[in-house]
């Protein structure tokens, strides 16, 4: 039973796993950028992902705005919430131990999840696949739903674009400089506090984009954010937060691994990433792409 080596099934599940991998990559990317500059592990990252999905649903249900409109508007709204959160809450904690930042964002995550549960109930809400992306493409060994192809392609493009902005543009250069030495960058006349705010906003907006893209393929429910952020933490531990490119590769790779597990040992699929984390910690404690501590 456990080893039914059906190659089509395995390939099929791995392609589907890649969809999850895209979400892991987008989320761990945002987490790494925020951590790099703010020094805060954003526990609320998953909740912003969930908010992206719920905002897409709300925009559709109340204003009749479709998927494509939501894909633009929802992340902007999530980013605006991020600005408020950074200015009102997180900013007060930069000078003290970073563990408090983690506690604060954990509290924020609980509060937002509670609020969503109060408004929408414990059950999920449905979100349709946009008409233009319905149907499937035949890729030889399986019929691949068009929407999933879109998620994989758009997600990877989004990750690469983020990588490009950070590694290859003047804006990204300032960001990297501020990560290394904020006092020095401030001395050059760059407004570092504003930069911190916008970085947090951009990081959570990225999570919001992921949430909108996930809306048609995952059940939109209040717990989806916390569930995925724990997996993303494991992804971050495996990859190490030192490298943007590393985050992307690790996220996609672990999505594939999860798909592979689903096809071969279905009962292990929910734990395989955690097991991978344990193995990496034992063999290479600093993570695949991590710098020495």
């Amino acid at each position, binding site marked *: 039973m456990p080893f039914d080596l059906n190659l089509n099934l395995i390939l099929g599940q791995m392609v589907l796993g890649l969809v999850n991998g895209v979400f892991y990559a987008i989320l761990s990317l945002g987490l790494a950028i925020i*951590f790099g500059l703010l020094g805060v*592990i954003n526990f609320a990252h998953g909740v912003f992902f969930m908010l992206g999905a719920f905002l897409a649903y709300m925009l559709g249900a109340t204003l009749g705005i479709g998927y494509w409109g939501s894909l633009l508007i929802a992340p902007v709204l999530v980013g605006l919430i991020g600005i408020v959160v950074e200015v009102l*809450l997180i900013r*007060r*904690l930069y000078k*003290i*131990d*970073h*563990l*408090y930042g*983690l*506690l*604060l964002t*954990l*509290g*924020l*995550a*609980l*509060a*937002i*999840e*509670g*609020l969503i*549960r*109060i408004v929408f109930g*414990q059950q999920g809400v449905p979100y349709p696949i946009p008409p233009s992306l319905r149907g499937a493409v035949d890729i030889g060994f399986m019929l691949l739903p068009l929407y999933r192809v879109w998620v994989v392609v758009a997600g990877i493009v989004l990750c690469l674009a983020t990588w490009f902005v950070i590694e290859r543009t003047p804006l990204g250069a300032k960001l990297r400089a501020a990560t290394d030495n904020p006092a020095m960058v401030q001395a050059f006349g760059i407004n570092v506090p504003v930069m911190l705010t916008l970085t947090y906003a951009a990081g959570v907006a990225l999570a919001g984009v992921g949430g909108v893209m996930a809306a048609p393929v995952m059940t939109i429910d*209040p717990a989806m954010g*916390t569930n995925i952020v*724990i*997996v993303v*933490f*494991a992804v*971050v*531990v495996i990859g190490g937060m030192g490298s943007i490119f590393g985050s992307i590769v690790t996220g996609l790779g672990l999505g594939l691994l999860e798909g592979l597990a689903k096809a071969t040992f279905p*009962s292990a699929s*929910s*734990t395989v990433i*955690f*097991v991978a*984390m*344990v193995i990496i*910690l*034992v063999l290479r*404690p*600093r993570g695949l792409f991590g710098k020495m*501590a």
Partner: protein
Amino acid sequence: MSSAATETRPLPMEGRDSFQFLGFTRARAIFFLAFVVVVVVSPLAVYPIFLMKVYCFIIFACAYNLLLGYTGLMSFGHAAFFGMGAYLCGYAATQWGLPVGLAVLAGTAYAGLLGLVFGWIAIRRQGLYFGMITLALAQMVYFVALKAPFTGGEDGIQSVPRGTLFGLVDLSSNMALYWTLSVILLAVLVFYNRIVHSPFGQVLRAIRNNPDRTKSLGVDVDRFKLLSFVISAALSGFAASLKTVLFGIATLTDVSLNISTEVVLINLVGGIGTIFGPVVGSYVILMLEQFMAPYGPWVLLIQGIVFMLFVLIFRQGIVGELQKRLKTHL
């Protein structure tokens, strides 16, 4: 990285006090005796089952505070030890037919063993990574508990018998169980205070305050961290086993993320790195939850707001603020 509990130090370091009562300093002895009175009197006014639940969580919170407050390690995965301790205690009592004392011991030992394995894995990384790793490990345990046959899946392990303690005390009566748990709780508080102020506890605090300097003094830092982690895990399993005896059930709730965040919240509200913080925090948080229970998801919202409020305004917790007012350690 400096630890959570040391960012401001409003009080002078604790010196040696000539006054000793069960290892407590004068101020703590007064607090302790006042608490004994509360324990004796409160069942007259409050439902004993609720009080016993609070006592189990005080023990759990002490276990957690030993790690966060005195060793400076922030775990987000203590539900793994709590949940697995509860499951094994319930399994031992129902399937192996062990008497209640041995079942509790089995739950404690199993949680300690799990702590040894998880600690060995997690102390390879420090600070925030440590928190993320323990969180991920606990989530893995949750998925295992969800699917493994011995946990009873969604139903959990039910009708765990209370039995008789060492063949002497019939625990099926609520008041008999109440006095038993009260004695255990007070003993744990004495034990916890002793550990914190023993030479071993001094080393833990040295590690918390400055791990590099402690290492340079020839202390095997990782070994002490691991030992502290194992003690914390075992004591968590002990608390969970008592809870299983109390309610007669062990369920998925015990191993869920909520338990991990709850114990952090209790300590944050009570006072991280204080002896009596877990006591005060457990009363406050469990009462809050009791009052809010009929309102469903509002509990989560209120918990989140309390979290943020204490992180932003009362980082020292209630007992920490009290210490500042009274200018003494509690």
